[in-house]
């Protein structure tokens, strides 16, 4: 009889690429850093670490403002800094209000540019998961309403969600994908109001919800 050997299942990968953001970072640096952290975190959940092992520098520029950042990929560490100095290996020009959608063909190392854009343009999490995380992050902001009421219009009609408990509520409605973008930080709340998101609450609540949106989008 053949002797059997028990092989332990591999433990989930807890290590992931470290994303470093410079001190006193500008919004674009914070946005890229936060997005790459979300991308790297996919690996923790068993997905591919899209930035692991990449080497080189990529310039990321806004298509309509002077905002620019340099992403330095060094294997298991990625650094994001403000501005573009020197000659990067690749350059991408993106719409920062369209989830890093490229507006021009990348220049330089096409493979590196494509790899970074894949990480920056991860598919949205389901709106309900994103909303739960959003409300968790927003809880600590002074003056935030107690309850978030969501009406998400998806392929199967309107889905509803309620997050938090308490007396004060804030309502937000719109296309499911757009709401997922707002809740995940991929989209800016104020910008999304012109793109189909609707809100119900006071002006004061919109103000503090803006702070919440910036918290998840820029980590400020």
């Amino acid at each position, binding site marked *: 009889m053949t002797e059997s050997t028990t092989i332990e299942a591999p433990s989930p990968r807890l290590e992931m690429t470290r994303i470093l953001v410079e001190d*006193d970072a*500008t*919004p*674009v640096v914070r946005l890229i850093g936060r997005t790459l952290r979300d991308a790297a975190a996919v690996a923790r959940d068993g997905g591919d670490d899209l930035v692991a092992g990449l080497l080189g520098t990529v310039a990321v520029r806004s298509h309509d*403002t*002077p*905002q620019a950042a340099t992403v330095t990929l060094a294997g298991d560490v990625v650094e994001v800094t*403000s*501005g573009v100095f020197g000659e990067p290996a690749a350059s991408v020009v993106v719409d*920062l209000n369209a989830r890093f959608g490229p507006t021009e063909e990348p220049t330089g190392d096409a493979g590196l540019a494509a790899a970074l854009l894949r990480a920056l343009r991860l598919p949205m999490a389901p709106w309900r998961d994103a909303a739960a995380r959003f409300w968790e992050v927003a809880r600590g*902001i*002074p*003056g*935030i309403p107690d309850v978030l009421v969501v009406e998400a219009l998806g392929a199967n009609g309107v889905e509803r969600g309620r997050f938090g408990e308490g007396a004060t509520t804030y309502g937000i409605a719109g296309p499911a994908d757009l709401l997922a973008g707002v809740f995940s930080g991929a989209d800016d709340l*104020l910008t999304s109001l012109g793109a189909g998101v609707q809100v119900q609450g*006071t*002006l*004061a609540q*919109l*103000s*503090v919800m*803006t*702070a919440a949106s*910036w918290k998840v989008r*820029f980590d*400020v």
Partner: protein
Amino acid sequence: MSDTTTARRAVRLEATNHEGSLLGKNVSSAKFEAGKETGFAFADILFAIDLNNEIVLGDAFPDWRGNLYDIQMIPDLTTLVEWKPGLDSVIGDYWLKDGTPVPICPRNLVRRLVARLADDGYDAPVAVEIEATLFEESVQEARSRGYRDLTPLGGSTGATYHLARSGDWIAYMEAVVERLDRVGIAWEAWTDEAAPGQTELNLAPTDPVRLGDNWARTRQVMREVAHELGHTVSFMAKPTAGFGQGAHINVSLQSDGVNRFFAEDGPSDLMRNAVGGLLATMEGNTSIAFPQITSYRRLVDLTGPPTTVSWGVNNKTAAVRAITGHPKYSRLEYRLPGADVNPYLALAGVLAGVLAGIEQRIEPPAEVTDMAWCLPDSRGVPRIPDTMSKAGAALDADPLLREYLGDEFVDFWVASRRWEWMEFHTKGGDPFAELSAWESQRYFEFP
């Protein structure tokens, strides 16, 4: 203040918003008479819009701010003057319906701190040096050029104290001080300043609330005279890429008519404590003294503004210069604010620092007797926060300024500066430009 003399058709109600712009509206004489005791309704949005008329969002409004509620502007009738024939002008404060002051009203902040000083037995004469840059072009021409590539009035060479300025520059300043005399604003001196087109105008010492009034009105006078003469003037911290401009505040403390900053052998203990408070609050106060993105572009060693949290006796390279040795002139010169500061908030910040220092007996750090610019890190003298975000974080974390200015003001101000920072970075400002077009567009005419 001067008496009103001519038949009055209207009264201009005035008060600054948080940015330091003089806001208001004209009311008929009858309307003014009907409301001068009870006040006039203003939408609270005046504390909620930025210099581009966008509603500032990003914080939890206090209870009194809701869906654009009204607040009451109650005129301070001691400020009533004849501004020009047929038009009077009066400055007021903002109050809530329950009779309490709007906690973020700049003038009321100063009033509250002056009252606290009085409770401690002191009054605080203050004076200010106002710097501004004049350009030949009319404001319409300046606008059409995006406020760029303008011609300095009086010639394009930089000079300090030169009397050779051309007549157009002199005519402008003479018209300004003539107008100041007419509306009862005491001034002491004016001179050519360091940069092409730049002037410095010194207002006489008076109590802090009145100085805030005089400062705000002087900027209005300087604008109106510029417009009348077909020129333009800017109080931007850096109206051109090359030169910056500040607003030094001189303060002393007296009781029973005696200057308590004076001591025979140098700074009095009270002056030392005041210095201690001013330095302890300086990093947080930077957010107030440097309100706009461009404010921080002045922070260049060796160019005039202080760059370190420092003080010294008669040391103009330090942030606080102690002038000592004379029973009348002993005072502190707080050299931090830029020309773009809100006058009342600048004064409130200084008074908060002085109050903190004398009430809590704060000992100052070692005096800097060397040049305070370019100091090695090993000297342990902190640098002044050099970005809006760093300064905002310093204010947010400053327990002294929270105590003396109030949590509601600090939270509001920090949030409004975060909005400004976000607008600059995401709406077209360029942090790597020497002076971006976005800044010229936003700050040249206001505050």
